[in-house]
């Protein structure tokens, strides 16, 4: 029983799922991504990069994703997606720390590649930890 539950948390790649999404789903996400990039850029230009940096963590895209998931899979699944996003957000803190530590030593491109690797490792590590401890996808709170 516990093995079956744990297997339910094993990550799976299903490329065919892309076809179930309308192009407009991605247009909406592009618009949200472009909008927050513009806002963070303008705020950074006006108030300085530290203030602008705060808005690099602003939840602009997540609301669009949660709304789309709710329409496609229901409130419960959207809620569980948000729990996963909380783990991803912890990893985003690690990404930011990597940028601070490495930017002046490694240059921009190498720093961002390293930062993304750090994000993946922390996010996947946290997911593995939650999957090991709880052995099942949590119920929506």
């Amino acid at each position, binding site marked *: 029983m516990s093995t079956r539950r744990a297997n339910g948390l094993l990550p799976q790649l299903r490329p065919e799922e*892309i076809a179930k999404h309308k192009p407009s789903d991605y247009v909406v996400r592009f618009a949200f991504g*472009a909008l927050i990039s513009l806002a963070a850029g303008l705020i950074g230009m006006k108030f300085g990069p530290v203030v602008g940096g*705060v808005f*690099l963590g602003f939840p602009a*895209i997540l*609301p669009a994703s949660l709304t789309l998931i709710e*329409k496609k899979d229901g409130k419960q699944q959207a809620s569980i997606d948000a729990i996963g996003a909380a783990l991803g957000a912890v990893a985003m803190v690690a990404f930011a720390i990597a940028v601070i530590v490495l930017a002046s030593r490694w240059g921009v491109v190498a720093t961002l590649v390293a930062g993304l690797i750090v*994000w993946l490792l922390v996010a996947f590590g946290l997911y593995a930890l939650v999957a090991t401890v709880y052995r099942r996808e949590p119920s929506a*709170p």
Partner: protein
Amino acid sequence: MKDVLLLGIRVLAGGALVVAFAMVSDMLKPKMFSGLFGAAPSVATASLLVSGLAMGAAKDAKYGTGMIAGAIGLIAYSLAAAPAVKRLGGVAGSIVAWVAWVLPAGAAFWVLSR
């Protein structure tokens, strides 16, 4: 003129990376795992790449300092959105949860900028 051009590149790159991460997320199961990518640093990567190449890596380190505060707010937002979306629905729940971003992000910014 240079600022406008940089902003334009940043906007296009930000939108494109968000779509790329969204496509990865849409291909993954289970939902808690695909949810990780809802908080991927997509906008941050695009913004830091453009600003870093144009103005130097030191500026990216400053953006990174602010980003810690924003990401702490994003943790609180996600935790608040989980019950809010279940009770209020996707649109209302995800908008209401923005309140949960403001305070932790503001408090962390205050601590980090002292």
